[in-house]
């Protein structure tokens, strides 16, 4: 049996109720429960989290740097997705 090569997990922490989960780091563990316990000890020992996610690193699909142009540049010139694009008559405060 091969020693030690426990799978890698990515850890996400939620800092407070209602906040988004953020990537905190990674660790090694044999299964999900084990990963959760290790994550609690490694990434939440100063009370940094109220919730934890652990995800096998192999389950994450990332965009490639070469995709950066086609993936993200088109989002830059769609000003009409942002509220500042639209004019509202002076003095109207609802917006």
């Amino acid at each position: 049996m091969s020693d030690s090569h426990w799978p890698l997990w990515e850890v996400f922490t939620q800092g407070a109720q209602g906040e988004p989960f953020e990537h905190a780091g990674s660790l090694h563990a044999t299964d999900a429960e084990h990963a959760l316990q290790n994550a609690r000890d490694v990434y939440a020992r100063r009370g940094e989290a109220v919730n934890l996610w652990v995800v096998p690193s192999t389950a994450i699909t990332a965009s490639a740097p070469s995709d950066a142009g086609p993936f993200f540049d088109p989002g830059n010139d769609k000003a009409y997705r942002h509220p500042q694009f639209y004019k509202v008559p002076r003095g109207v405060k609802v917006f």
Partner: protein
Amino acid sequence: MTAKAAGHDDEPGIAAGEAAAGTRPVAGARRAALGDPLVELLFRLGDDRLILGHRLSELTGHGPILEEDIATANMALDLIGQAASMLKLAGELEGKGRDEDALAYFRDAVQFRNCLLVEQPNGDFAQTMARQFLFDAYSVLLLDELSRASHAGIAAVAAKSLKEAKYHLRHSSEWVLRLGDGTDESHARMQRAIGALWRFTGELFVADEVEAAAAAKGAAVDLSGVQARWDTMVDDVLARATLRRPTDTAMQRGGRSGRHTEHLGHLLATMQIVARSHPGATW
């Protein structure tokens, strides 16, 4: 403390300082009964956690894998923190001006009230986790009862410790499962560890006059109820871990009256050396 464990107490050099103290368990029992039972109860609770926390702290940096080093250190920190609060409260109730450090560093082995289980050496990782599991199960049940004590100070410290103890139990029982139902080697090691430590579990549930007197002062614990629930809990984990529960084990006891195994004296010699080499110093 009403009965003493035959044979065991008569072995020479059981703990450092014992010969000088020259007390028999009966004398210890009388002294305890004369004192405040809540102080005695807090010594038991605090010393259990101090000694177990110390044992775990010996492992910092020597664990089987980095993640586990961090987990073990967390448990050690929780336990020593619990001990500090409990001994602080004990010192306040005792009213002799002893704080948690005076109690931790300037008592001899015969004055410690921890159970024998927690002072046993770390051994291999199976023994460390078996000891942790057997204690955690007891600790969760005991603290659960004490968290409802009418004595506010004891209830508060028990409630805070209970949260941590529940996590410890989750961690240690997972390891009992992993090692019990892991490889042949880990199974054998865990079975051996459970077998070796079993004789120190009986003592956890022996009720004596301290419990009775503490109950009268607002800190009641039903040890036979705790034992019944402990049996169920431990049996369940052992069964799932494919481990046998030891039978016909002759139980050892004495910790609650200061009659320890030889291991405690060595532990304290290390723990107290700096503090005792510089009496009166501030750190």
